């Protein structure tokens, strides 16, 4: 039976939103291999599941929302792949001593890979004509969660190190924006 104009408009809107939600699967599938890589590197399964679920929920929301938010997903995955993979490539008990203080190599790799991730996001954000801040926020969140799945091998300190490295990596983009504004 034919619907009244207003009812049709509302149903069309609902159908559109549901269609967008269905389409998120085309992007969120990537979380499965990310979790698999994380599970291969360490045995902290509860953390992997919790972070993986959060990553999935966030990615779904971003892709469903679309525009800059949705565009930020894959750059986030790309930047987060470095801290996801790199710390797992060295033995967990390997230490590195510099100037009298010793650090776990994993921990150092987490900070370094966070830095690379931050620089990557900064470089990709510079190419955005609109919604640069949204892009940085979304891709940094995705990269942070993806990277956490790798840096969890170095414990909380590893995740903190990765986050600090990431913030330092974003600094050049922030400074460039400030200089351009001034």
């Amino acid at each position, binding site marked *: *039976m*034919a*619907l009244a104009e207003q009812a*049709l*408009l509302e*149903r*069309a*809107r609902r*159908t*559109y939103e*549901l*269609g*967008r939600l269905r*389409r998120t699967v085309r992007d969120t599938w990537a979380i499965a291999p990310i979790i698999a890589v994380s599970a291969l590197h360490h045995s902290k399964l509860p953390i992997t599941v919790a972070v993986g679920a959060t990553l999935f929920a966030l990615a779904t929301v971003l892709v*469903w*929302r*679309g*525009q800059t*938010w*949705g565009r930020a997903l894959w750059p986030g995955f790309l930047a987060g792949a470095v801290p996801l993979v790199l710390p797992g490539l060295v033995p967990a008990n390997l230490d590195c001593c510099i100037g009298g203080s010793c650090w776990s190599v994993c921990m150092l790799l987490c900070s370094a890979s966070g830095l690379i991730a931050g620089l990557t996001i900064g470089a990709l954000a510079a190419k955005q004509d609109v919604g640069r801040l949204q892009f940085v926020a979304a891709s940094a969140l995705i990269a942070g969660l993806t990277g956490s799945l790798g840096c969890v091998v170095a414990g909380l300190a590893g995740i903190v190190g990765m986050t600090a490295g990431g913030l330092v990596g974003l600094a050049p983009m922030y400074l460039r924006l400030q200089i351009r504004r001034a």
Partner: protein
Amino acid sequence: MDSAAQAELQKQMARLALGDRFAFLPVYEALWPVLREFIGRQMPPSDSEDVAQEALLKIFARASELDPERDALSWALGIATFEIRTVRKRILRRREERVPALPQVASADSVEQQLVARDLEAAAREALGTLRPSDIETLKLVATGRLPPVPRATFRKRVERALKRFKLAWRAKHGTG
């Protein structure tokens, strides 16, 4: 739809595909009359409104899949055309189902029915010596109004084929249609 309106629709649909909700209303307002007219030309008035609404909902369900490089109007009308075809098939099927089946006799294996079936089989065998036993069985089922334990569509196809062969054989034997 003139070229300026079409260009505007293309722009708005590309925005909608990327997730810009502000483009929803302009797309709806531009597309709905076009769809109504397009479908109204191809469907009877009793069905056209429903088909147009279904098509509109399908277009919005797939709006995010639109490639901005593609012509948005053609893409939307393509979905509408597919919907028209689907509904036409559905109507055709419904009409076929509405054709009353042959009246069922209280007992399917009654003597009378068996005699009719035997006579029919004999006549068919006599006239159509070349007809396959499976075709005769199918025609017998049609004559007695029974349905075999196969899907309706399969049986319909079998009847169609058996009748075709029957006609050919009849024509070959009696020289008339």
